């Protein structure tokens, strides 16, 4: 043990200073900690969506055959997507609403692309607990505001797919999309 003490005394850097052994100890343990964290990163990251899932992250939709008043249900990121061609009456109804009275205040303009106000494109996922609202299919219940109606807990959405009644906190989400031509959109 004498030799250890000898080394220690040599490692002293002045009074109350850090011994060389302490420094090496802290440096080694810290570096091992950095290494452990570096190993955890891939272990956690592997659970994120894989490349093939992300490859399906955008969807092209042909909207040429959707007549005013009709809607289609398709999928985007394996979740339902509603593409709806609004009638003039439905647009008027949506514009008539006092925005400040809404739970999630947004105008129809803010929820559609400039100059394409008749195309309402939203996720078909209720913002309450993720059910698929009714109203996109022919003859389905559109609820008391003429938009969408979620059968799970009774949330009603209006013709701009804004939440009007029921437990859902937000309007139906509008995904990122753009018109690639007059009759096609690219979502995602």
């Amino acid at each position, binding site marked *: 043990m004498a030799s250890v003490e000898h080394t220690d005394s040599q490692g002293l850097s002045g009074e109350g200073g850090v011994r060389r052994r302490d420094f090496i100890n802290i440096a080694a343990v810290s570096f091992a900690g950095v290494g452990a964290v570096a190993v955890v990163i891939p272990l956690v990251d592997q659970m994120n969506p894989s490349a093939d899932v992300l490859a399906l992250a955008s969807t092209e939709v042909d909207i040429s055959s959707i007549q005013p008043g009709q809607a289609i249900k398709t999928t985007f990121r394996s979740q339902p997507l509603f593409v709806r061609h609004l009638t003039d009456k439905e647009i008027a109804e949506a514009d008539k609403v006092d925005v400040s009275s809404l739970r999630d205040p947004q105008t129809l303009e803010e929820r559609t692309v400039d100059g394409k106000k008749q195309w309402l494109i939203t996720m078909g996922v209720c913002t309450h607990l993720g059910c698929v609202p009714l109203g996109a299919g022919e003859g389905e219940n559109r609820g008391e505001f003429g938009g969408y109606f979620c059968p799970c807990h009774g949330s009603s959405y209006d013709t701009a797919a804004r939440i009007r009644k029921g437990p859902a*906190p937000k309007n139906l989400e509008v995904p990122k999309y753009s018109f690639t031509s007059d009759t096609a959109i690219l979502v995602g």
Partner: protein
Amino acid sequence: MSFPWAEHYTPKHPAMQWIDEKLPLPRLVYNAIGAGYPVPRNLNYFWNFGVLAGLALVIQIVTGVIMAMHYGANTLVAFGTVEQTMRDVNAGWLMRYAHANGASFFFIVVYLHIFRGLFYGSYKAPREMVWLLGLVIFLLMMATAFMGYVLPWGQMSYWGAKVITGLFGAIPVVGEPIQTWLLGGFAPGNASLNRFFSLHFLLPFVIAAVVILHIWALHIPGSSNPTGVEVKGPQDTVPFHPYYTAKDGFGVGVFLILFSILLFFAPNYLGHPDNYIEANPLSTPAHIVPEWYFWPFYAILRAFTVDFFFVPAKLLGVLAMFSAILMLFFLPWLDTSPVRSGNYRPTFKKFFWILIVDVLILGYCGGAPAAEPYVMISQVAGAYYFAHFLIILPLISRFERPLPLPGSITESVLNRHNIKGEQDALPGMGADPQPSNAG
């Protein structure tokens, strides 16, 4: 293990002596669940449920490992392989029904085990660690059960997975990345199914490991008992084997009879018909409900319908649901009464039964549709649940005047059995310990 008068393991057969020298595993078993573990002599049948929970875990692991031999964890085939197990695999129907109903029985016995602990104050010093480890097991069980329910890839599986992972989406800022990370996609899919299968296979063995810690922690102070009075001497205990192996054996028989009745005569009674429809991401079942053992917590989740101080109702519901369980981790320090058993706490006893009724009401509301009057009842019952633990229990501990405790376990036993004439002769058998008159 815990008391100096415990019987000693003395192997007689040379082979057993040889093993004992090399790896004293038989000695460990003897001291843990054999004649070497002295147990209070007055345990009632509520003390059966620990062993029954262990049996339920074994049933789940055995049937589960067999089910995994016939299962394909891929969204294209998962539903089909489960149906194939039911129809084509020899005795496959038995394995699957035993596994599904076994989960329900596991929760039944664990809930009774938990309420046993609540009534008899088993969570109090020096057994806090036993209680905390038990809650860890309970949380692991809930995670395992949830993931197992997703595997058949029916409609309830899919939408249950969507709603439950959606809970994490309620967390501000990091919620949605967490949800995507948990699912490995933007909605439940192949990646989710595979990881749930992997973890559903792993977690039961983690539970088994925590069960060993739970028993280890229990055996340091030894088992509690219906009087809550600590063991004072050898006359207060009997060896675990054969006394409690026999008593638990009887309980096991009753358990298996009840299990068989459900398994063979009403195997789908606790299930949902919707789960026999293959998962369809474009169509939601009209009424999404979790399995019955989650209902009280589901009711608390749905009880929040309005935002408070900019905190969205959905997030409040999620926080309340998790708090309902996490709060129990603080129970040993919320109930400060030095008297353990509810039998000697008249005020506590009344509120204990109110709590039981409250939890049953919550369970009923959790299984009912999210409409009035169920939402309002859930709000009241949910508020009471929290009030019981955070307000009522600390107040009772402070103001209640407990009944006089028996001097010892033996004294209470003899009091109960000599009875009639002698009960009057021993008025108010006091708080002070008295010398035992047992042989």
